[in-house]
């Protein structure tokens, strides 16, 4: 906090009011309704709602489709984080290495970040279409790829579609992280360790830990929430619900099935997951990394 501050009885609230107002009406009010939905059940005609304690939660735990979506979401976030993180890091290290053309490379690798996930999904669609999709035919030649029927193949489809643009985000943040490392540290390490491969893993990579953990959170959040547009424009859950994320399933149950109680309960489950990840990040990871 600042040592010198303003003291006033009201003007700070004038500055806070616009944001607080928007958050209260368009965020807190809906969240309260989410809780209300999750603990009530609409009758079949939509005339009334009854308080049912944890019934909606018990129903989703009884639903095999929920666990299929849960499993897919975990696998999807893990694989996307791994793929986009390692490719992003590899490209950032190379871009940081080169003497000439650094900013050109940066420009040429940064732009996919700006494309909407839904647009990426529509594009991926063309490369995985049975009619003229290049990747569809390539993979089909290799091992009989068919995402309409094989769960594994549909995973490959949505993983490629989901990873493509996220490589850019990882690249930007890793490059910034690399450039923030002080020259003197690198120079000193060059004297101590001649092997550049070992130097990277023992000196540079540990210094990148804050960036790495930040990106893990960013990538998991992306895989959880932003991929809605990708799933909705590629597999739509094909073969039969195996490529639905938790967000996608909650939306479909609420929108198609008109089951707001279940959608509410599923939303609260996801809030809990996000909360656990965040606490984990603050508790265990923040304490264990070195900032220079």
């Amino acid at each position, binding site marked *: 906090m*600042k*040592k*010198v*501050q*303003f003291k*006033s009885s009201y003007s*700070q609230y004038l*500055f*806070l009011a*616009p*944001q*607080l107002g*928007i*958050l209260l009406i*368009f965020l807190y*009010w*809906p*969240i309260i309704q*989410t809780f209300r*939905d999750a603990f009530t059940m609409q009758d079949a005609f939509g005339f009334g709602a009854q308080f049912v304690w944890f019934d909606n939660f018990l129903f989703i735990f009884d639903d095999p489709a929920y666990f299929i979506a849960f499993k897919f979401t975990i696998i999807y976030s893990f694989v996307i984080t791994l793929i986009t993180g390692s490719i992003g890091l*590899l*490209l950032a290290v*190379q871009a940081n*290495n*080169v*003497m000439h053309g650094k900013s050109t490379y*940066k*420009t*040429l*690798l*940064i*732009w*996919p970040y*700006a494309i*909407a996930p*839904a*647009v990426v999904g*529509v*594009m991926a669609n*063309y*490369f995985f279409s049975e009619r003229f999709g*290049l990747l569809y035919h390539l993979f089909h030649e290799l091992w009989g790829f068919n995402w309409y029927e094989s769960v594994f193949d549909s995973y490959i489809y949505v993983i490629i579609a989901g990873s*493509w643009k996220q*490589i*850019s985000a990882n*690249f930007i943040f890793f490059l*910034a992280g690399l*450039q*923030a490392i002080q020259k003197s540290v690198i120079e000193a390490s060059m004297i101590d360790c001649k092997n550049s491969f070992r130097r990277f893993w023992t000196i540079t990579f540990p210094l990148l830990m804050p960036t790495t953990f930040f990106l893990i959170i960013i990538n998991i959040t992306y895989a959880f*929430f932003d991929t*809605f*547009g990708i799933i*909705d424009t590629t597999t739509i859950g094909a073969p039969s619900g195996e490529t639905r994320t938790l*967000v996608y399933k909650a939306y479909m149950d609420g929108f198609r099935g008109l089951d*707001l109680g279940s959608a*509410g309960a599923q939303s609260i489950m*996801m*809030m809990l997951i*996000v909360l656990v990840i*965040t606490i984990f990040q603050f508790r265990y990871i923040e304490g264990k990394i070195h900032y220079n």
Partner: protein
Amino acid sequence: MTRFITSSFSHLILLIGILIMVVPVWMIFASSTHTSSMINMNGLQMFLGDSFYENYLRVLLYQGGFFKEITALKMFFNSFIMATGVAILSVVTSLMAAYALVYYRIKHATLLFWIIFITILVPLELRIFPTYSVMAELNLVNSYFGLIVPISASAIATLFFRQFYKTVPDELLESAKLDGANTWRFFVDFLIPLSKTMIVAMLIFMFVFGYNQYLWPLLVTTSEQYWTVVMGLKMMSGSIVHRFAFVMMSMVPPILIIIVLQKHFIKGVFQDK
């Protein structure tokens, strides 16, 4: 010699990375300049055809949608209004809120801090139906207001501005006070000019964020008059080359903004001088 080999290796890896990014987009673009029968017979194309004007003009001006009431041009207009609205509203409210949090001694400051920042953990996707029913109750479905405001309910920019204000030296306020500046003057004449880079970066970030929204516009616009580009991709009918052309045009605005304003964006987000 080793230097040369390692640097050639770096260039090679980077080149492969760029190809992975550029080739898919290029192929859709090249294919969008051909005729549909060409695509249906020969698949995606690597080289340009000669139906560019024909395809793109048709997509821009064609009356699409279920009721044939909207053109792609109108969708671009809607997307532009929505993205600009989200950018300005969220950045202005965040600038002000962060100012109050850093420059005032507030009662219950910790509580206020958490009320604002815990919202980052609850993205719109988690409260989408209740948000819709709030909008319906307030009679805001099918309006620009309805498209913009729930997306602007975000404290991400507040977090960035707060971090930035904390790095501003205390002496600035002291000298401003000596000059007789009140709180409003200090905010407008001193702090905002100083935060220019950060403001531009956040405007870009929120513009792209608003432009790329898919699920919310899908739910909150039942009237075609308010369709945006990104959601329109799923709604528009047309032959395959027209779809290609629409996809290509839909990605131009955010990419252009990121490339042109790249330096400001990176400077602001990473705070390097």
